[in-house]
C-alpha cells in the first residue's frame, strides 16, 4: 500500500489563493468557514463520489477511475481501487467494502486480503443499456431503510451519438429529430430500484440529467434535474414509483407504452402525464446546475438546519439549502443560498457529512464550468442570522428566523419584495420566467418570541415560484441576514377549508 503525504508540496508551489488549507476572509465572526483538503500529487481530482467509512475516514472516487481513502487525522491519502469507468457515486459498506456506480455497472469492490486495496470487483447489476454517448452518466447508489438501492441513469445527449455497438436493446423510435436528449436503450432517463434480492426494477422516468439522489429526513426519495430541453429551470423532485417527471425520451421504456415516439406527442399530452417538481431552483437566482441533495443528520453539529437539505451547485461557489413541507399531501418548499463564496469553489458535485458534523464537498468540472478538489465546511458555533424556514399559509407565508429579530426592521413592509413567475414546459432549452409580477404584501405580523414573521400577500396562486427578496432586516443582536433571496415553489395551495 502506498501512502501519500502532500502537505510539503504546497509551500513552494502555491500560486492560487485556494491552495491554503484555511481560506482567506473567514474571520472568526463567521458562522461557517471553508477549508481545502490537500489532494495527492498527480491526481486529477474530479470528484465523482464521497462517503465516510464507519471508522471516520473519507472515501472518494474520481472520474479517472480512482477510489482513494483520506484520513483526516493524519491528512494522508491512500489508493483503494483504480481503473473504474467514470465512477459518479460511492456508498461505503465498511472499511474494506464499497459500492461504486460506474458507467457500465454498479460494482461491489472489496479488499479481501487486508492489504488496504480492493482485489475483488463484483458486478452488483449491469441490467441497463449503454450506448457510449458521453452523457449517459450513472448516479447513486443511495439506500433506503428497507435496504433497496436506487440509481439514476442519465439520458443521452443530442450533441453526441450512439456507438455502432451498444449494450442493451437498441430502439431508436424514441429519438428526437432535434437536439433533445434521448433514450434509445433501457432505461436511460429513469431512476431504478435494486431490491435486496438483486433485481433491478424500473422505478420512475422522465429525467434529463439527474445528477443527485438523496432522502429527506422522512425517507422520501429525492432527485435533482438540470435545466435544459423540457426542463425550464433546474428542479428537485420527490421521486415516487411509476411517475413521469417530464423529459419525454425515457417514456418508450414504460411498460405497455404504445404511443410511438414520445417527442411527437403534444406538449399538452406530455404535460398531462407529468408530475411537477417539489422545488424549482430558479436559474441565475438560486442554481444553474444543482447536484446531490443531502439531509442534515448532524443533530446540530452543523448548525441550526437539522432535517433540512443541502444541495450542491456546479456553476458557482454555492451550496443551496432546501426546506420541504407537505401541502395537500405533496412535498413542496423553498430554496435559499446557504453559503456563497467564502472560499468555496465551483463544481460542488458531491456532499457528505463527516462524523464531526462538517460538510465535505467534492468538486468536479469534466468539461463543464466547475472545479476540482475537495473542501470541507465547518460550523464555527456562531449562530447564523438566516431565514430558518418558510411555510405556506392560507394568506401568504410564515418565515421563521434562526435568531430573534429587531421588530422595527422586521415589520417594515419595504423589507419584503415578492415576485412570482413560472417556467414554461417545452422542448426548448430552458425557459424564461413567465408571467412575472410583483405581489404586494398586505399584512406583517411578528410573533411574541420575535422569531416568526407572518406575511399576507395580495394574491396566491398555485403553479408559481414566489421569490422573496428581503431587505436589511436585523436580528436583536444587530446582525444582518446572511442570505436575502428565498424562492418558494407553490405546487399546491393550502385548501380553503383549513383556513
Amino acid at each position, binding site marked *: 500500500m502506498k501512502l501519500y503525504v502532500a502537505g510539503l508540496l504546497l509551500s513552494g508551489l502555491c500560486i492560487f489563493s485556494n491552495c491554503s488549507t484555511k481560506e482567506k476572509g473567514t474571520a472568526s465572526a463567521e458562522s461557517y468557514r471553508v477549508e481545502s483538503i490537500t489532494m495527492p500529487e498527480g491526481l486529477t481530482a474530479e470528484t465523482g463520489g464521497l462517503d465516510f467509512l464507519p471508522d471516520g475516514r473519507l472515501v472518494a472516487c474520481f472520474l479517472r477511475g480512482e477510489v482513494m481513502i483520506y484520513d483526516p487525522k493524519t491528512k494522508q491519502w491512500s489508493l483503494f481501487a483504480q481503473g473504474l*469507468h467514470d465512477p459518479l457515486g460511492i456508498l461505503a459498506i465498511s472499511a474494506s467494502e464499497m459500492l461504486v456506480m460506474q458507467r457500465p455497472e454498479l460494482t461491489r469492490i472489496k479488499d479481501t486480503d487486508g492489504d488496504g486495496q480492493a482485489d475483488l470487483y463484483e458486478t452488483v447489476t449491469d441490467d441497463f443499456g449503454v450506448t457510449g454517448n458521453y452523457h449517459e452518466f450513472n448516479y447513486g447508489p443511495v439506500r433506503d431503510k428497507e435496504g433497496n438501492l436506487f440509481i439514476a441513469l442519465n439520458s443521452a445527449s443530442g450533441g453526441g451519438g450512439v456507438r455502432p455497438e451498444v449494450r442493451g436493446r437498441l430502439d431508436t423510435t424514441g429519438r428526437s429529430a432535434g437536439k433533445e436528449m434521448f433514450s434509445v436503450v433501457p432505461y436511460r432517463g429513469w431512476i431504478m430500484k435494486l431490491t435486496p434480492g438483486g433485481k433491478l426494477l424500473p422505478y420512475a422516468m422522465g429525467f434529463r440529467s439527474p445528477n443527485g439522489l438523496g432522502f429527506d429526513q422522512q425517507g422520501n426519495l429525492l432527485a435533482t434535474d438540470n435545466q435544459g430541453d423540457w426542463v425550464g429551470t433546474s428542479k428537485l423532485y420527490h421521486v415516487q414509483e411509476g411517475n413521469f417527471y417530464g423529459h419525454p425520451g425515457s417514456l418508450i421504456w414504460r411498460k405497455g407504452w404504445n404511443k410511438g415516439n414520445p417527442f411527437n406527442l403534444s406538449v399538452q399530452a406530455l404535460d398531462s402525464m407529468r408530475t411537477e417538481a417539489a422545488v424549482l431552483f430558479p436559474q441565475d437566482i438560486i442554481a444553474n446546475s444543482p447536484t446531490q441533495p443531502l439531509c442534515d443528520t448532524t443533530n446540530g453539529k452543523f448548525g441550526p438546519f437539522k432535517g433540512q437539505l443541502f444541495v450542491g451547485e456546479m456553476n458557482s461557489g454555492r451550496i443551496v439549502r432546501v426546506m420541504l413541507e407537505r401541502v395537500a399531501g405533496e412535498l413542496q418548499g423553498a430554496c435559499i443560498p446557504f453559503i456563497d463564496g467564502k472560499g468555496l469553489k465551483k463544481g460542488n458535485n458531491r456532499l457528505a457529512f463527516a462524523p464531526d458534523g462538517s460538510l465535505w464537498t467534492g468538486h468536479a468540472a469534466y468539461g463543464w464550468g466547475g472545479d476540482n478538489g475537495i473542501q470541507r465546511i465547518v460550523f464555527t458555533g456562531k449562530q447564523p442570522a438566516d431565514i430558518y424556514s418558510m411555510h405556506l399559509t392560507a394568506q401568504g407565508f410564515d418565515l421563521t428566523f434562526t435568531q430573534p429579530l429587531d421588530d422595527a426592521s422586521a415589520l417594515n413592509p419595504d423589507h419584503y419584495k415578492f415576485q412570482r413567475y413560472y417556467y414554461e414546459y417545452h422542448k426548448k*432549452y430552458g425557459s424564461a420566467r413567465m408571467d412575472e409580477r410583483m405581489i404586494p404584501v398586505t399584512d406583517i405580523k411578528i410573533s411574541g418570541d420575535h422569531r416568526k414573521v407572518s406575511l399576507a400577500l395580495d394574491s396566491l396562486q398555485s403553479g408559481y415560484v414566489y421569490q422573496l427578496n428581503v431587505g436589511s432586516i436585523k436580528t436583536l443582536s444587530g446582525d444582518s441576514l446572511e442570505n436575502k433571496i428565498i424562492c418558494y415553489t407553490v405546487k399546491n395551495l393550502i385548501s380553503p377549508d383549513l383556513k
Partner: protein
Amino acid sequence: MQTRLLLTVFIFLFVIQAKAHPTKDTITTITINAVGGLQYDVTRFKVKPGAKVRIIFTNKDDMSHNLVITKPGARLEVVNAALSLGNDGQKINYIPHVPAVLWSLPILGPGETKTVSFIAPGAAGIYPYVCTYPGHGVVMYGAMYVTNGEMPAIKDDPNIPPNKKTDAGEDDSAHHDHMTPKIAHAYQEEPPYVCRIFIPDASPAAIAVRLPHELSYCWDAGTCHLRYAWQGGFLDNADIWKGHHDAYGVILGTVFFYDKTDYPLQVDKPGNIPVVAFKGYQLLKRYPEFHYTINGIDVYELIKPKEDGMGLIRTFRIPKTDRTIWFVADPGDGVSYQSSGGKWINGKLKILPGEAGRFTITMTKNKP
C-alpha cells in the same frame, strides 16, 4: 425558410462580387461552432484592419451559448458584467450593456445558427470573443486578431484557452503522437493494471488491461470475451478526459489479435452460442481474473503475457460443469494456438468436463 434561402443567395452573390472586385467590398467570412466541452472550434482568426467581417455562428453543443466580441483586454470584465446581471441576464442573452462589448450574437439553443456582420476596427489589436453564458466565459473564448501581420505561434498564444494550444487537449494529458502519456494519476502505474474507458471496436462496457512486455488487451464486459490485443503503447485518454463530448481512448500500439468468432466458448457442440453474464473480476497479483457465466456455467479467465512477450496465455477455470466445452478460433485472427489439454478437431478445441477445471490456451503472435 425563404428568408434563409434569400440570404444564402445574397451571400453567394456577395461572394461572387467580392471575387470580381478583390480590392473592394471583400468580405471575410468566419465560421465558428460552439462544440461540446465549453469551447469554440475556432479559437483564433485574423482579419485586416477595417475589413468587412461576417461571423457565422452555429451551436453544435447540447447547451446554450452566445458569442460576444469585446474590446482588447476586456474579456473578463465583460464576463463579470454578464454574471452580475443575475436575475435579468437571460432576458438580454447575458450580453451586458457595457461599452466594452463591440458586437454580439445572442444565446443560441442547440442546433441554431446566426450571423453577425461588422467592419473590423481600424486599430490593430487582439479582440477577444467569449461566451458570456454564466459559468462558460472562464474557459470558452477565442481571439480575433486585427492585423496586417501574422499571429503568434499557437503554442505561445496567451489569448486562447490553454487546452487549445495543442491538438491533444489538456496540458496534463498525453499528446497523440507520444507513445507514453504523462502522469495522469496519483500513483505509479506498473503493469499489470486495469483501465475502464470507452475504447474502439468493442461495446461501451469494455475493459482495457495493460500487461508487461508492452502488451495490452481489450476484454469486453458487455460481451464477456477477449476482443483484441495489441503491443506498443497503451492508451491515450487525453481526448476522452476533456469530458463533455463523445470520445474514445486511442490505442497506442499495433493490434495483433482480433477475435472473429461469434463467441469463443461454446457448450456441448460447436455453433452453440451461449447466453453470457458478467460477474466481475478479482485481482491476482494485480492481474484481473474475469468471472462470467455461459448458459449459467461459471467461467474464470486470467490473461497473462507469454514469457517471451510474443503473445498471451489465457488460463480458464470452469470448476463445476458436466458439459463438453468447445474453444473456437478463427484462423485469420492473427495468432496461433496451443492448449494445455483437450483435443483440437478441425481447428476447434474440445474440452471434456474432467479437463475444464483448469486449462490454458497460448496465443502466439503470427510472424509478419
